């Protein structure tokens, strides 16, 4: 597996490319759609400038394709802890199928609330006509939807929920270590499902974090070997070091959890002098999801600032603590 991941827009080759950034002459990929005179892109097998040309031909001067918005009423399946709920959201089958890609997420708000109430939610399971997600009541936006009314507006699909997504997508017949802490257990379920479909052997280390362990049963049922530990930092990381050094060496580490967990794993790999590709959940603060607002921007080691809602790269490319 290629352990270098070039920074590339996740929306390339989806119905949402060319996006509003191309309309605004700010495409993150195509030099021409940034107003430059010559072609100088990091070739992704498709010419976005050309796609823009066809888009204009097909829909005239209207803007780029907008994400789907669905009005629906969710149902609480399970209260995991005081503030954490597993909910099921009925959606159309087309909308559900668009969210099957690893790292997909949606934005949710109450129907009557203004757009700035949208908050991002990672997908745990995709059914034929429903989505299962885990939501923790943490701030004004997430608390609001658990009021009396449960009519919500769902917007999506968005794809960049996992940094290193191409690795997860392409690895097969490999040995994978999946570390999930706290709320990271939710995306871990969809990641494990995908990895197992591609005949990988998945060893999961899960910890409750600030909440509880809720993914153990699901992961075991799928066929993962699961170690449920009390703390990733104290128990999980030493266990990970042992697993890394056990032959055959793992092909990929997947870290689902807070950024501190990602850094802990990077340090652990440095300690044992091993450099493995690591996919990690994208925990950046997301507001618009379209690369416009700037809330999710992070600086990479080469000094370039990227919107992490759009650009795919590996987590270790970011400067620490930005």
């Amino acid at each position, binding site marked *: 597996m290629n352990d270098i991941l070039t920074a590339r827009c996740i929306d390339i080759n989806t119905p949402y490319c060319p996006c509003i950034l191309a309309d605004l002459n700010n495409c993150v990929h195509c030099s021409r759609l940034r107003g430059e005179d*010559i072609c100088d892109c990091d070739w992704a097998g498709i010419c976005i400038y050309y796609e823009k040309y066809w888009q204009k031909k097909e829909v005239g001067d209207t803007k780029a394709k907008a994400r789907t918005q669905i009005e629906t009423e969710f149902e609480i399946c399970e209260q995991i802890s005081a503030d954490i709920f597993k909910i099921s959201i009925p959606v159309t089958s087309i909308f559900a199928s668009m969210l099957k890609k690893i790292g997909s997420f949606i934005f949710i708000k109450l129907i009557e609330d203004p757009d700035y109430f949208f908050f991002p939610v990672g997908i745990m399971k995709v059914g034929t006509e429903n989505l299962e997600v885990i939501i923790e009541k943490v701030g004004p936006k997430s608390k609001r939807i658990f009021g009396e009314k449960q009519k919500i507006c769902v917007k999506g699909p968005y794809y960049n929920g996992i940094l290193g997504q191409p690795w997860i997508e392409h690895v097969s017949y490999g040995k994978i270590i999946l570390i999930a802490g706290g709320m990271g257990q939710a995306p871990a379920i969809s990641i494990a499902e995908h990895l197992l479909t591609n005949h990988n052997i998945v060893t999961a280390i899960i910890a409750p974090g600030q909440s509880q362990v809720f993914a153990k049963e699901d992961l075991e049922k799928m066929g993962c070997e699961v170690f449920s530990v009390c703390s990733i930092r104290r128990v999980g990381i030493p266990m990970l070091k042992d697993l890394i050094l056990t032959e055959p060496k793992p092909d990929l580490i997947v870290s689902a959890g807070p950024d501190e967990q990602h850094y802990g794993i990077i340090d652990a790999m440095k300690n044992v002098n091993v450099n493995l590709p690591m996919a990690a959940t994208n925990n950046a603060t997301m507001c618009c999801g379209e690369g416009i607002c700037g809330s999710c921007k992070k600086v990479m080691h080469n000094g370039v600032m990227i919107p992490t809602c759009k650009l795919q790269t590996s987590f270790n490319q970011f400067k620490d603590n930005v």
Partner: protein
Amino acid sequence: MKVVVVGGGWSGCAAALAAKKAGGDVVLLERTDLLLGTGLVGGIFRNNGRYTAAQEAIEMGGGDLFDIMDEVSRHKSLNFPGHNHASLYDVNKIEPYVRTLLERNGIEVNLMNRMVRVKKYAKTILAIITDKENEFAGDVFIDATGTAGPMGNCLKYGNGCCMCVLRCPSFGPRISLTAKMDIKETMGQRDDGTPGAMSGACKLNKATLSPQILEKLERDGVVVVPLPEKIDKSSVLGKKACTQYALADYARNIILLDTGHAKLMTPYFSLNDLRNIPGFENVRYEDPYSGGNGNSIRYLGIAPSDDSLKVLGADNLFCCGEKAGLLVGHTEAIISGLLAGHNAVRHVLDMQYLQLPTKLACGDFLEYMHGQMIKPNGLKVRYSFSGSTYFERMKQLGLYTTHNEEIKSRVAACNLSNIYSTCLV
């Protein structure tokens, strides 16, 4: 001494050979799976002044590539409107010959390695990194990346991607080494000032021509079919890259040349119009596949260079082919490639660069072209030994000749006999 040549078209191959013969360790990088670039669909050489230029290169010791062209020629001493004593090499056969020649000479040919990044220190290039993350370090570099495409450019300045032999969608677009060094490049222009120019020929699949036309084409090498009056192609002429073929004859007639394909001397031609012409009822395109709609756009990234073909603004970079100026054709590409490859080695050895004297067509050509390109409207002209303004100049200056002995004595008088086959190390 490591010489890295980026781009495996005719000029890149010539540069690699010249650098190798001069004593360099040569690495050649090519983004596709075939060498020769647009030479895979060209085929015309030794027409008009190109004869003199090719013969000069042979006398200077750089004749290997011309020998191969001669060897796989389908037709020799052919005359067609505006052009005499042309040879047509078989575009379908030539590539393996060239690849074998390079490899036999010990040149490391790396196909499907597209340059994407450059490691540099100030104005010095240290290494080239390809899309496969291979790193090629070198002492001197040659930019033979050409000026044609990719799709964004063909769309902006032409009729879009026409699916030509450059095959950008499959192998990734051309990337200019000079541009990666942050050196400003110039663009050629059309008569109306639009940047770039459209490639000048299409290739028809021979098997789809009528048996009568096919038989005549294979026998004579050339077929001229008058266009029906209702179809007029004169508006296309100004768009052509190859001004030596932008003649009225080419607007009133269909001119086919037998290069292995049936080379149709027009940038593009509506397939439906074409099929209305007797003998062309079932015809279809070979290259570009969308030849009914358009052709590739070229001259979009010319490096600033002097007559030694050193790129101005970088310490260890040379250029050749279309990168070196608004030149057209394989012969022109090869003579510039030979000079760039040879001078690259001289650069590393700290020798004075070779500058071809104006007593030779090759030397006068480069000097004239570079001089004209900085004049007003100079970017609207294309320069070729085979026609347009430069062939006129060749005739006026008495540089044009087809007498091999005379060319030999001219080269000898300049003390340049076998200069390209002399090892400098």
